[in-house]
């Protein structure tokens, strides 16, 4: 490389000395203008083909991939934000549900106490009613029994007295009593 540079410096110094020297130098380097122009055109064609059929689609593809990656990252951020919001919402709902559950448990306890108290009172009233009815029934049975005993005793006394009177009253006594009874009715 350094050799080539030395040759070029030497050629430049030579140009100043002689104008015809450039064409000689180029000739000396082997430059063939038609071939050179053909090479340039060839290069441009190949470059254009490369640009339109390789570089440009590849660039578009890269841009598309980059956009997709950016969309994915943005979507990930949004999802993360939504996840955070959902977590917060879940915590709030859990907290609210816990409070409501505690309220429900407290109310259930209070209602249970009230129902228990009411049922206890009703049971006491029913027991009192049963006792009262039992007492009344016992009193009624006692009265009925007492009445029956009195009736039987009265029947027994009357029957016994009647039998004794029928047996012991003499005929003349019956007549005397009948006379007295007739007179008694007459005097009334």
């Amino acid at each position: 490389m350094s050799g080539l540079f030395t040759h070029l410096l030497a050629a430049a110094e030579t140009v100043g000395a002689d104008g015809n020297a450039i064409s000689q130098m180029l000739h000396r380097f082997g430059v063939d203008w038609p071939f050179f122009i053909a090479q340039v055109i060839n290069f441009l064609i190949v470059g254009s083909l490369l640009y339109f059929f390789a570089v440009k689609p590849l660039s578009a593809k890269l841009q598309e991939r980059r956009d997709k990656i950016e969309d994915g990252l943005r979507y990930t951020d949004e999802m993360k934000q939504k996840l955070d919001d959902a977590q917060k919402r879940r915590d709030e709902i859990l907290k609210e549900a816990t409070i409501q559950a505690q309220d429900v448990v407290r109310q259930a306890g209070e209602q249970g106490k009230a129902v228990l108290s009411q049922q206890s009172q009703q049971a006491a009233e029913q027991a009192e009613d049963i006792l009262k009815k039992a007492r009344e029934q016992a009193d009624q049975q006692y009265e009925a029994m007492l009445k029956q005993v009195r009736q039987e005793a009265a029947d027994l006394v009357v029957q016994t007295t009647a039998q004794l009177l029928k047996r012991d009253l003499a005929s003349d006594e019956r007549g005397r009593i009948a006379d007295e009874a007739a007179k008694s009715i007459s005097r009334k």
Partner: protein
Amino acid sequence: MVATPAIKATARRLLALSLDEQGAVSAERALEVIKVLEANPPKRGLRVLLKTYATYLESHLTKTQARIEHAGNLDAAALQELLTSLEQRYNRKLEPVVTENPALIAGVRARVGDDVFDNSFASTLQTLRQSLQ
């Protein structure tokens, strides 16, 4: 058929024809009434008329009878005294119907119409029974 007011009035007239001068039911007069009815029956309601007449006769007999029940021998004087007192009370002559009733145990029971005069041991014992109950 139900006794109409006209049938009742006819039955009352027949009853009046069946009484004697003292106002007591006369069996002869009652028989005559029935014979006349048999000979001249009404066009309608003979059966009802006879039933009504019998009811009035029974009611009148009950009012003019003194049904006297007694247990033991009842002296004739005591019976007459009782009958006289009842006639004075009702201000009419009463026909005595005397029967013995051992269920009275001792004493007398007299009945005129719906009125009952009971002076017997049976009634006394019944009163005793009620007071004991």
